[in-house]
């Protein structure tokens, strides 16, 4: 890790801020911001993952690299399934003009909660 790489606590801080922001947006948006809520949940998950890796001084370069490090350093199949679902929905919302449902927002929140639990982070 270099001096410029975020520390585990910095990643955790960003993860929690994103998670709170997603909740705020969902409350304010009244169903019109489902896609962005899911996207922010995805980036929260990304920082939780990167934070856990950073505890072992492991950094990630891009999505493909992060995927490999989830497999080799975190080694949690269920976590990967939850993470990939969040990632795919986030991308679909941003690039394919997909309108996510309230159910999918709820599933996304569950995915993030399960990822946190897998990594040993509390709610």
């Amino acid at each position, binding site marked *: 890790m270099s001096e410029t790489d975020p520390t585990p606590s910095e990643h955790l801080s960003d993860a929690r801020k994103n998670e709170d922001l997603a909740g705020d947006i969902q409350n304010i948006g009244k169903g019109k911001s489902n896609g962005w809520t899911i996207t922010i949940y995805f980036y929260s998950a990304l920082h939780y993952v990167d934070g856990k890796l950073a505890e072992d001084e492991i950094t990630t370069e891009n999505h493909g690299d992060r995927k*490999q490090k989830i497999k080799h350093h975190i080694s949690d*199949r269920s976590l*990967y*399934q939850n993470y990939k*679902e969040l990632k*795919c929905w986030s991308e679909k919302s941003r690039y*394919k003009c997909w309108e996510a449902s309230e159910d999918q927002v709820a*599933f996304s929140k569950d995915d993030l909660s399960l990822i946190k639990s897998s990594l040993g982070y509390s709610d």
Partner: protein
Amino acid sequence: MDSTNTSEFEFGNAEGFNSGTNQLESSESSKFIITEPELGNQSFLTQLEAFTPPITKVYERFDTVAEVVEFWILLDQEDREVKREIYGLEYDFMDRFGDMELITHVVPEGDFAESNITEDAKLIYIDE
């Protein structure tokens, strides 16, 4: 699909595909055209067979320059559980394609357009 050792599989004339026939040696036990048996491909596709249906079509692309092997897996309709199962297979087979990154895209057929895939993608399975 012909189940003899040497089979002909005629791709459609859709834009972006090479038309004509492919003569490949196909496994009698597989529904898929196995294009790269020496990698993890055959065993990955064998696992994927469990989801046919609801899988309706599968396209694959091997990019040895970018070191990516990519699959577009089409479903007859949206199916969250099947998608997650295929993400799990992606996790399981992540290291089985040498230095190539395995990427899966699982999409309901109604959301898929042929412009979504690259010209070098090959149709390796179609539900008959």
